[in-house]
């Protein structure tokens, strides 16, 4: 449910990585279509979850929004300002408002800098002098993320993974951002620590009103954290909806399959219907025509191969629930998953 004026507006976002080959003259022989036409909005203070399998373009999307990568096409608007191809100088005022939390807490902190330097670095770069000095602000930030503020002159190797990720959060918060892109912020952590960090992020989101793009492959964490969830497959959004709507009423077969794969502890005798997807994710260098999911979909027909389904509010959806499918699931539709063979494996 996007607000009237979205903070971030992404339309038709595309990123193709060129594949080089050939001898002796190297030339572009193809492209990995990592992200291919994404449309979504993130409202002020809203958390959008981005889920999907490995290699579906989630992280690429995150890096495109923070402009670590140059988009091939499409448009990224931040507060109405087009930042799709903005240079470093043009981005400078916005840099402080869009921050990022990284996946690997062991790689995201410079091993040669103290925690104080790491957290105050963003302030130094953007020439921000908070009242009371940068050191006081660093202590305050460390306190916010639940670390001992006296540890500001320690080095990253003296901290555990969860503590390091907290340092990463403190660094992202240092500039009072409006939007944080969290790229699988907990997937490198122990399960026992994951909850702590997710709760910290949630606290930060609620108390400071920061919007999040939360990238994860763990549906349970996304459900816990995000108000809205987008499901990605092979560089495209398959379905995007409010959290409860998506989890209770998935309309896309892929979403349904994903949700059915979440392990669940139940005391019921009746085992839940588990949809097993056949085959592998097709190569993003040569994705299937039409609907990208059709090679693994049990409902696929000729129409799916010839026509890419648009991401629209299909019949029966609540407002804001968009699904890209010609044959959306309904609540009572019996999943017919146990396929013996891969339908239309050949494109």
């Amino acid at each position, binding site marked *: 449910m996007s607000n009237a004026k979205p903070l971030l507006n992404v339309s038709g976002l595309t990123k193709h990585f060129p594949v080089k080959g050939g001898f002796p003259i190297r030339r572009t022989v193809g492209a990995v279509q990592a992200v291919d036409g994404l449309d979504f909005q993130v409202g002020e203070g809203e958390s959008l979850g981005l889920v999907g399998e490995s290699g579906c373009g989630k992280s690429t999307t995150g890096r495109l929004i923070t402009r670590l990568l140059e988009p091939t096409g499409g448009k990224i608007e931040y507060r109405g300002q087009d930042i799709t191809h903005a240079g470093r100088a043009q981005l400078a005022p916005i*840099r402080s408002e869009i921050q990022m939390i990284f996946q690997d807490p062991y790689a995201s902190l410079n*091993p040669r800098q103290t925690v104080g330097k790491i957290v105050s670095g*963003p302030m130094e770069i953007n020439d921000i002098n908070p009242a009371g000095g940068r050191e006081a602000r660093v202590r305050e930030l460390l306190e916010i993320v639940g670390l001992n503020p006296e540890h500001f002159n320690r080095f990253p190797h003296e901290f555990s993974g969860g503590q390091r990720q907290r340092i990463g959060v403190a660094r992202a918060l240092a500039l009072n951002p409006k939007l944080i892109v969290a790229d699988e912020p907990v997937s490198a952590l122990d399960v026992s620590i994951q*909850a702590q960090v997710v709760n910290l992020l949630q606290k930060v989101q609620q108390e400071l009103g920061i919007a999040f793009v939360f990238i994860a492959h763990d549906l*349970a964490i996304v459900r816990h954290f995000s108000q809205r969830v987008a499901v990605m497959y092979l560089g495209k959004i398959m379905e995007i909806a409010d959290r409860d709507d998506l989890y209770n009423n998935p309309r896309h077969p892929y979403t349904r399959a994903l949700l059915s794969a979440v392990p669940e502890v139940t005391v019921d005798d009746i085992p839940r219907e588990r949809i097993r997807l056949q085959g592998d994710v097709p190569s993003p260098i040569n994705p299937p025509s039409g609907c990208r999911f059709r090679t693994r979909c049990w409902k696929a027909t000729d129409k799916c191969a010839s026509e890419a389904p648009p991401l629209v509010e299909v019949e029966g959806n609540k407002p804001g629930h968009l699904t890209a499918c010609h044959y959306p699931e309904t609540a009572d539709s019996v999943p017919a998953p146990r396929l013996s063979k891969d339908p239309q494996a050949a494109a």
Partner: protein
Amino acid sequence: MTPPTPSAATPLEVIDESVEKSPSPSTPKGNESRSPGRLAWKRFRRDRTGVISAYIVIFFFVIAIAAPLIAKLYGKDPYTTYASQRPELLNAFSYPAGPNGGMSSEFWFGIEPQLGRDVFTFLLYAIRTSLGIAVAATILTTVVGVVIGVTAGYLGGRTDYLVGRIIDIVLSFPSTLFFIAFMPVIYGIFVAADDDVPTWLRATAMIILMAAFGWASIARLLRGQVLGLREREFVEAAKVTGASPMRIVFKELLPNLATPIIIQSTLMLPAFVTAEAGLAFLGVGMIDPTPDWGVMIQRGAQFYTEDLTFMLFPGLSMVIFVLAFNLLGDSVRDALDPKSKR
């Protein structure tokens, strides 16, 4: 897995306390930071070979720097031919008259055959010249190598490709042959045919030529390191906050490259010492009136059948120095990069 627990912040702090305690036992003062450099220093101090080698190396540098002072206290200089004033120092065949190459309380390391110079001061100044050239060449090589390597690695693309090919060419060059063939050409450019080549020109030419062939290996190494580092997330984190390329190179990349740079340059210096001596021995580096390790060994090689002592001093001192410096380099590497220890 993640049941929403709004009050999770409280128990969570408790867990943190216990985790925070863990690094404390090894650091008595709670807020004392253990920087990577300090940890490396601690590891180094535990390495006895390294510490002894360091003392030997420091000793050589001290006597090289203090050579004029020592010579003054000792009361001799390396240029005076003492035998021309006191012919009794040499015998009829121009070899030292006394035993053991003329070693005495007056001439500690004996005197040189034929010319009768003082070996002790000559050796002091020889160490001074050789180490000076080697240190200058090491510094120049390191600076050039670091600048080119980091630039190539950071910019990537065409620059990287071009630099990579240049490195290949430089590394495939037979540098010793090039020195022998080219030194006279260089002297010919700057000095008229029948003039003497000034010592400073010889030294400068050697330093520049050695750096011209030495930068490639360190540049290649650093290029690889930078390629690995610049994809690391902390560099991306700096970019997200708007850091300039300058800041990324100097604040994020270079501190992490200090280890390979230090290791490379400590292993490079003894190699330059031997290379410089080798060139002097071959007659393309320093030449006779200038005291130099290579010059001394070359002179010694002329007389070693009759007067071994004269060759022994420069030879032994150089072996000790190069060995100690190489061991020091290994210890420095082990201290800075413990994973590389076999």
